[in-house]
């Protein structure tokens, strides 16, 4: 019996590595998250509901969810375009441009925040020209959308790029030789192949934008009812020791994050089934 076991599992270390993995995850985040959710249940339903339905909080949901949706949509269009251009076309400096796409992933959000507000303030390099047309970005909801677009930028590009690279040229050639013009080929052959990846990237960008704090708070100006995002209200309530309020809103955000994670996993499963 021990011989067959040894034959089945030549590689050692399962107990050790799995044990450490679960212990570390448990201590660092599973137990804390569980305890947090338990803490929320000690609140009465009324306290919870009042905290999450205050007018100021509801206004922040509208901005956070709405802004994230708009930003993810901008990234869907332009991120898809960037992926297309990086995979299909040749131009000087392409490798550098490709590398730069990861910048929002590596640059600290606070640095991005002060850079964006400096750039898009009405005296900034970009803001001063927009100011001529009466377009204000810093300290408006538009500024929030700009910051959320920045933070979600890598996701659509990086999910679409590998799918586009693996797309067989034969498919397009077949479509063309069967008489389809280029637009028809893109619409009927390329787009359907990219669709799951586009949707996954969209969901990832949306999820990332929803929880974002650092790159937004500088450019938004945090005006109550107008440019306050939900994460900002959580910080404000925590700083005022209103733990019930903060925890209630935090739970809403946590549930939204779990839902997005489920959706993203579902999308990836679908994409891999379609793709493989």
């Amino acid at each position, binding site marked *: 019996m021990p011989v067959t076991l040894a034959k089945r599992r030549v590689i050692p270390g399962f107990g050790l590595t799995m044990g450490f993995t679960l212990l570390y995850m448990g201590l660092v985040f599973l137990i804390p998250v569980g*305890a947090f959710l338990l803490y929320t249940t000690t609140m009465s339903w009324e306290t919870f509901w009042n905290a999450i339905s205050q007018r100021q909080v509801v206004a922040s949901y509208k901005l956070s969810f709405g802004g994230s949706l708009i930003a993810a949509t901008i990234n869907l269009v332009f991120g898809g375009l960037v992926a297309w251009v990086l995979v299909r076309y040749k131009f000087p400096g392409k490798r550098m441009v490709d590398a730069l796409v990861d910048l929002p992933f*590596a640059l600290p959000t606070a640095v991005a925040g002060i850079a964006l507000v400096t750039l898009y303030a009405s005296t*900034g390099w970009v803001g001063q020209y927009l100011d001529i047309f009466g377009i204000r970005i810093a300290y408006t909801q538009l500024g929030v959308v700009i910051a959320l677009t920045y933070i979600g930028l890598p996701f659509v590009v990086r999910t679409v790029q590998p799918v586009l690279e693996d797309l067989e040229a034969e498919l397009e050639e077949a479509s063309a030789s069967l008489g389809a013009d280029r637009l028809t080929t893109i619409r009927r052959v390329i787009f359907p192949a990219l669709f799951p990846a586009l949707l996954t990237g969209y969901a990832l960008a949306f999820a990332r934008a929803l929880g974002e*704090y650092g790159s937004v708070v500088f450019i938004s100006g945090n005006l109550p009812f107008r440019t306050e995002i939900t994460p900002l209200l959580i910080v404000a309530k925590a700083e005022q020791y209103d733990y019930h309020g903060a925890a209630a809103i935090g739970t809403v955000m946590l549930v939204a994050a779990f839902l997005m994670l489920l959706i993203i996993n579902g999308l990836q499963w679908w994409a891999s089934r379609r793709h493989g």
Partner: protein
Amino acid sequence: MTTPSTVIDTNDTIAKRWRRATEEPAWIRITLITIALTFLTLFLVLPLTVVLYGAFERGIGVWYAAVSDPDALSAIRLTLLIVAIVVPLNTLFGVAAAWSIAKFEFRGKSILISLIDMPFAISPVVVGLIFVILFGSQGWLGPWLSAHDMRIIFAVPGIIIVIAFGTLPFIARELIPLMQQQGKEEEEASLTLGANGWKTFWYVTLPNIKWGLIYGIILCNARAMGEFGAVAVVSGRIRGETNTMPLHIEVLYNEYMFTAAFAVSSLLTGLALVTIAIKSAVEWNEERRQRIAAA
């Protein structure tokens, strides 16, 4: 009779016509490239430039004064101390998780992979809040901690744990797909030939995952140094004590010391640029290896 040159000519026109069927005309290509580059300039190149310009606008002397200011130095020291603790722990976790997931079959594997991704989906602000509610003075364990004269929130341990939480997935996410793709034949061969588990890991697995591991560590390091939202909630922003570099940048910015804010930012920006440079070097390496393998 056709001369060789006309044969080439016809082939050329055919080739051109065929290319046009699966490629867009030049003017569309140029327009699309221009739109894409304009978008990336507005959102990536200009923010990057504005940080570096703001940092060095008033000369290297002013830059140096800002980064060598005592508060800045203490923020840098604290940030380095934190990554010296968090990055090795998350590296150990990433390697252990990837080993158990890639080399073994077990039930609930996909759930475990999703769980590892979870910290990435949670808002950094909520991460901070979770620990404030657990360990804060008004939190669950707060009274017990203060009775035993221990401080986690508004102190360094709190900052360390929220950063460990926030950067937990990065190394594991790099290694899991890499090790899954490489399979386990090489390790099995090594073990059958008599090497023990550690030797096999050290001489067989590690060289195979080296570059992915290096990128994972570098990314984890950059993210740990730059973590802001979670740290903002648990740090209390005590100058010279619990201000990390990003928090120090925020303080400087809010005090209208823009040049100093950009000077400290330029250090983290340099780190970010190194990170993405290493990522493309790793990818380049991999592409070359695949090309050689295919040839």
